[in-house]
């Protein structure tokens, strides 16, 4: 009888672990004369499907805008942009295999998958095959610490996600903030974000009174909050995803954890779900984002950030772009600009053009350092005001003044 119980336990474990998925269909082809073929392995199904599809929308906007304006100028002729998608089912291994498949078909120019884990897997294969990849969403600095030369990320690195909020609070908050505590998810990306935030806080003279890690994707952070409560931080900074971000604000209220300044949480507040789930409790929470429609800068394809938002909305029934769409379009734009500058689709020449790129765009500056990261671009800090995220930092993009203290002390 005991055996039976253990057997059942075993089977349940196996079934829970079984993540099934199918690989994308075969397709794609090499560039012929009239077209410029770019490959993209994307998470169209699986746990990252939502973000994967937002990323595809950004790539699609790039393709249609570039083609509507006559295509990519390459050495005197114009080429239509064709992006070929393959579904990596949110699995890093599959993303790597798909990059190989693209290479077998002669597709040398690639757009990145969604997320740091899949991008890291793809980047290793890209490097081996001598392909070139414009990374739209893999922000983990670990991807760029391996000496790769073929992958270029348009977005600000992970270390900036929390650091930008620390900088904004130090620049703008009145009364001044002295102590901060960090609650971080335990995945690689979030930990990199936390390390960057702590380094920035210490550099700016703040005292870090707590550093707690919670399981990635948890909806219960009560343990971390209970530990932090007696240390009375002025600000609690969450390096989190949506689930943990909502839990921090909700459970802090339940547990009477009321920082005198407020809460700051990296990527959760800019998403509409955050305010929907929390209602009035979301008010005043800070977040950081790669892009908003007020980002400074413009380019000849998409105009200013506001123009890009209009283009996007016109293509998707009036829906406003999230930063996922914008960063995807920016990655595609980087390749288009590089091909134009190189006057060739040869991967070696395109790689050289990307390395030397220095352009203002609707996404902010595109300029890569020797590791392939875009450190010139600043993150933006938003605050939930009146139920909407509005940009409060940096000054050249801000829509409203920071409201501080962001939360009233709870009784």
């Amino acid at each position, binding site marked *: *009888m005991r055996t039976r119980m253990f057997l*059942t336990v075993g089977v349940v474990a196996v079934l829970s672990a079984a993540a099934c998925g199918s690989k994308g269909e075969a397709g794609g082809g090499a560039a012929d004369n009239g077209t410029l073929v770019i490959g993209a392995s994307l998470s169209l199904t699986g746990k990252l499907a939502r973000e994967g599809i937002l990323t595809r929308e950004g790539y699609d906007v790039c393709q249609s805008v570039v083609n509507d304006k006559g295509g990519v100028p390459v050495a005197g002729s114009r080429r239509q942009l064709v992006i070929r998608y393959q579904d990596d089912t949110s699995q890093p291994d599959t993303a790597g295999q798909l990059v190989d498949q693209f290479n077998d078909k002669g597709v040398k120019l690639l757009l990145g998958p969604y997320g740091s884990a899949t991008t890291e897997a793809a980047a290793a294969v890209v490097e081996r095959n001598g392909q070139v990849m414009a990374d739209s969403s893999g922000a983990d600095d670990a991807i760029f610490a391996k000496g790769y030369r073929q992958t270029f990320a348009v977005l600000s690195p992970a270390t900036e996600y929390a650091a930008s909020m620390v900088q904004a609070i130090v620049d703008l908050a009145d009364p001044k903030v002295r102590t901060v505590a960090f609650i971080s998810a335990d995945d690689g990306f979030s930990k990199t974000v936390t390390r960057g935030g702590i380094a920035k806080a210490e550099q700016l003279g703040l005292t870090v009174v707590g550093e707690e890690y919670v399981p990635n994707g948890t*909806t219960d952070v009560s*343990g971390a909050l209970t530990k932090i409560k007696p240390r009375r931080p002025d600000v609690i900074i969450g390096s989190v995803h949506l689930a943990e971000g909502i839990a921090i604000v909700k459970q802090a209220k339940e547990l009477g954890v009321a920082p005198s300044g407020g809460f700051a949480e990296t990527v959760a507040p800019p998403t509409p779900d955050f305010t929907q789930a929390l209602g009035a409790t979301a008010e005043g929470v800070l977040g950081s984002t790669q892009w908003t429609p007020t980002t400074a800068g413009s380019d000849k394809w998409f105009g200013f950030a506001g123009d890009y938002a209009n283009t996007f909305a016109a293509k998707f029934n009036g829906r406003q772009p999230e930063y996922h769409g914008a960063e995807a379009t920016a990655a595609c734009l980087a390749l288009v600009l590089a091909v134009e500058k190189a006057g060739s689709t040869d991967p070696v020449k395109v790689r050289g053009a990307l390395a030397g790129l220095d352009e203002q765009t609707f996404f902010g500056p595109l300029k890569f350092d020797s590791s392939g990261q875009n450190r010139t671009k600043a993150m933006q800090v938003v605050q939930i005001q009146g139920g909407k995220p509005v940009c409060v930092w940096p000054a050249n993009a801000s829509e409203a003044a920071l409201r501080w203290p962001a939360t009233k002390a709870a009784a």
Partner: protein
Amino acid sequence: MAGDEGGGVNQLAQATVYGLLQGCLFGLVAVGFSLVWGVLNVVNLAHGAFVLGGAYLAWELHDAFGLDPFVSMLPAAVVLFGLGYAIQRWLVNLVVNAPIFITLLLTFGLQLLAVNTLILLFTANYRSIPTGYTGISLVLAGDVRVPLGRLIAAALAIGLTAALVYLTRRTRTGLAILATGMDRGAARLMSIKAAHVYALTFGLAAALAGAAGAAVGAVGTFSPADAGRLTLFSFVAAVLGGLGNMWGALLGGLVLGLVESWGGQLLPGTLVNAVAFAALVIVLAIRPQGLAGRAFYASRLEA
């Protein structure tokens, strides 16, 4: 722990209170799972999806009519009862005599189907039902907080478990359920319709799952991706508490809640899941029938 007087004690008291409340919620989520396993010998891997069904129903009712999620427990339970009855009567009953692996696979398939249907209907976004008492807490000595929403959920968990115990011990229907669970052949000779009683049991479990879902929606956040986690919690709570006793799931839930909460205070926060499963392994090694359960066959004789 941060140096102020009594800080450590208060922290532990807070962790205990929160763990107990969380444990009651785990118990409520798990009680239907435990019932089906104990009576039908079916490990229902779709249980978490039923809980989410209740949560989304409560969310819709709140959105459309402003109904309080704790009130929505009733309609959620009714709808899920119908669904559960139908699934057992016309689907699981077909294979209920087959080896346990077949029902495991069937319910695993149901779970995949249900989760993807939920994603199609409601998207994969995280949701939470906003209520007027979200964030309101009773304050005890030492600034220990008792969140009101979770207190109501805990009281309802105890109440529903007590009601289930009453039903199975004191009513004809309940006794028929137990009798069928103990000896189907003998129950049939007493003119009990086994197929109907099995469906009734499964429907009851689904109804409890639906009610639990409404409570989860009121105090926490949920998304279709949580189905597996909820099933796993139910599984751990049911095994910890032991089958064959309707209080077992609640007891198992309380142990799970406390272990997670204390583990979170005394160890790095990322280890909480490991601590919970370590507790499960220890209990199974010392008392294979669970804390309140009876050894396997005996468990099928009395609730």
